[in-house]
């Protein structure tokens, strides 16, 4: 069943993916370069995008900050999990995955309930005498929402690279006189860079394009690129401008993953998928 059948088996799949991933992107490009009224070729939509640059920068900024915070918080956790016995590892791994199984929308709403002015945290602060703080509708709340929702995407790839690091290398480093910090800095950290870059990409991409988190946790000045696209499609009456913005977002993500792949070493062709 070797070579001849392999083509037979894979062709339907390749056709499917061409039809429903590559061609739709072409359709997006088509809409981005056509006039909403006349349907003729135009650069107007692209021209109008310069107005959205501040929003784009802001989205990138929020997503990068969130990715870095995720890295700082996620690394120790991944490191800890990777150094347990296999059974415990499996269990903890599952515990990291599990929150993703509960509706993303509801979990974000739960944060609204926690953070709002009349919410749980503020009522607690009030009760112990600190008084309510402005928590929700701040940039911090948006970043918190992103970190919370996408932290598992950071922990899982980190864990899978750290767990593959050969224990003998660490022992060797220690034998050669490295202290704990040096071993970590010279052996563990460099060996886990592929995981770091995969993790950053996997947090950055959904964070830069989210609209629900910023709508629920953000204030009037935290409008992200995802919000704008959603608004253009759902009430702005301008699909073509929305398509142009989607195209830019896609190109941005393309560049980011490309850079990350390059820094993360040529990751094997399976791509860095979680699990």
């Amino acid at each position: 069943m070797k070579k001849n059948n392999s083509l037979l088996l894979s062709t339907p799949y390749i056709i499917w993916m061409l039809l429903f991933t590559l061609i739709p992107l072409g359709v997006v490009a088509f809409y981005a370069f056509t006039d909403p009224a006349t349907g003729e070729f135009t650069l107007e939509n692209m021209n109008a995008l310069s107005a959205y640059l501040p929003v784009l920068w802001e989205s990138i900024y929020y997503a990068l900050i969130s990715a870095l915070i995720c890295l700082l918080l996620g690394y120790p956790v991944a490191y800890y999990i990777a150094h347990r016995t296999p059974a415990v590892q499996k269990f903890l791994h599952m515990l990291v995955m599990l929150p993703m199984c509960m509706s993303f929308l509801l979990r974000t709403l739960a944060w609204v309930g926690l953070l709002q002015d009349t919410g749980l945290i503020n009522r607690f602060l009030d009760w112990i005498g600190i008084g309510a703080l402005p928590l929700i509708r701040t940039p911090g709340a948006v970043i918190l929402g992103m970190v919370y929702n996408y932290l598992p995407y950071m922990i899982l790839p980190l864990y899978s690279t750290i767990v593959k690091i050969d224990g003998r290398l660490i022992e060797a480093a220690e034998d050669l006189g490295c202290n704990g910090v040096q071993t970590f800095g010279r052996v563990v950290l460099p060996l886990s860079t592929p995981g770091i870059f995969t993790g950053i990409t996997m947090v950055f991409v959904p964070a830069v394009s989210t609209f629900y988190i910023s709508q629920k946790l953000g204030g009037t000045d935290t409008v992200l690129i995802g919000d704008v696209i959603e608004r253009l499609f759902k009430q702005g009456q301008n699909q073509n401008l929305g398509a142009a913005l989607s195209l830019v977002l896609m190109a941005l993500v393309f560049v980011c993953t490309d850079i990350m792949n390059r820094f993360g070493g040529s990751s094997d062709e399976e791509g860095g998928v979680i699990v």
Partner: protein
Amino acid sequence: MKRTTRILTILMFVFLYIPMAVLIVASFNTGKDLTKFEGFTLGQYAALFRDPDLLRLLGNSLLIAILSTAFSVVFGTVAAVGVHNLKPKLRKAALSLTNIPMTNPDIVTGVSLSLLFIFVGGQLLRQRESLTFWTLLIAHITFSLPYVILNVMPKLHQMDNSLTDAAMDLGCTPIQSFFKVTLPEIMPGIAAGGIMAFTMSLDDFVISYFVTGMDFVTLPVEIYTYTKKPIHPKIYAMFTLLFLLIFVLMVTMNLLQLRSDKKKKETRVKAVKPAVRVLRRVCAVVLILCIVGGCCFLLLQPKGDTITLNVYNWGMNIADGTDGTLDIIAAFEEKYPNIRVQYATYESNEVMYSKLKNGGITVDVIIPSDYMIARMIDEDMLLELNFDNIPNFRHIDEEFRNNDFDPENKYSVPYTWGTVGILYNTKYVDQADVTGWELLWNEKYADKILMIDNSRDAFGIAQYLLGYDVNTTDKAELQACADKLAEQKPVLQQYVMDQIYSIMQNEEAWIAPYYAGDSMLMMEENEDLAFYLPVDQGFNLFIDAMCIPTCCREKEAAELFIDFLCDPEISGANMDYICYASPISEAREYMEEYLAESEVIYPSSEILAAGTNYQFLPGETSRYVENLFMGVRGSVSEGSDNFGLILTLVIVAVVVVPPVLRVGKKLRKRAKKKSA
């Protein structure tokens, strides 16, 4: 070091699970508010199983998840085997295709698929309804497939190829060798991929949100629109159950795998135990049953005699039987047993307009406001009504016929009318400050003021405040309004439509402009709220009317529905729930007395005289206003001329150049090899 990582890990898990705990606790709450625990009850779980609408939504979500998972598991496994055996170059190409939905942001995937379906279905195939169950299924399969492929491929890599060769040497056909050797070896990958695909599909919101049409909606998409009422705790109950289900599924998976790992250590090659074989068969049977069941469900969906009527209405804008009101849709279905009403809601005229304009859906009845009706008539988006089928039109008051927006009354039948005013909390807001629309700009209440989130009403408020005509097309005036609205931004808490309910009732905000009827509903929940109409400056007086859009499929049934709602008794019962004024004066007699006499719902004629209607704005002005409003909301500045060209070049450069460079590198390498 060890201890710190341990403490950090524990803290991290606490962080990850706090919101889950909040939701699970809320599912046992007798009260409706997420944050106020009033008492323990299991009643929410019982209520969940008594709510057919919720169960139907859950059924929809499960159906899509099961079908898309089953399909992508089978299709994906076959494809993975095929791709695995491809020549390296082709394999690489196939894998980069697989990576597209993985690396693309969900919103781009959703947008691209919805544009594809609308473009192919609407423009090429001339289908009226191109966003259906099937397109949703295709979308889910497309983003599920990579999970299966990417989990199965590594297992294929790990597998010893000589095993299949040995099997075939021993007389297996290729197919037999696949089932006897390959499949058991890659099973963990398939299972992991399947579970991931299932959970992703069940929880997917973003992609579904863009690809969903009118008649097949999944649970997350519906929850997104549940902004008006606080989410009912039975929804938390449902997700707690779902969560438990997945939890149990994952634990058993893990335990099974642990056991099989142990066994592998003990004896490398051993015949599969009968118990395991039985288990496998049971799994297979369950899977097949699910698929067959799903297909049957689809085929058996009410067709034939039953007509499905798609009604698209404002949120909470029809009596639904709660709080002792009449369930109007149920009453209609009882009267016309062969019609089934499929009901969906929108939160502003603009959302409804965009949904229809984007195309790809079928809607039979809509209830837009005056100015939007005028615009839709202008753009040929409405059908003329056959008033022979709407005899109850005779009950509509003379003053609500032949309105400005539909002068000959060919397209619309008035449903409600009302005003836009300011809702404020008397506990916090000084009565002396309630002098007019400028209250919404008052810095004293900074961060406690909400603003209405649709361009027409927001601009209307600025126009009343600045003393401009609300139907102006003058760009300088509109720009001045935009500036005024931008000035307001620092004192605003947020822009809202339907979310206003919980925010005002919880006293999270104190001041908001909103519609009279909805304000009345909120005032019933919180006694400190009051409604104010700035009579001196002017305010909007609106009429919402029922219309039939051109994408209608069941015009006669739609007219029956409109007629039904014009029955004075039905209209009265309806107004009891939605708290607006009926254009049928007879209906007032059937309303609860305190509502029929409320000044908020039926203001006196002197006050009404100060109100003005929004009228038709040309499409160009509407778009201009919408753009200005986008600018106000999102710190968007002016576009510039050459930017598009540069941007296009940059995009082409980043998307096309790297692959070209890569090819170039390879060619150079090859050349070097040759010369060496």
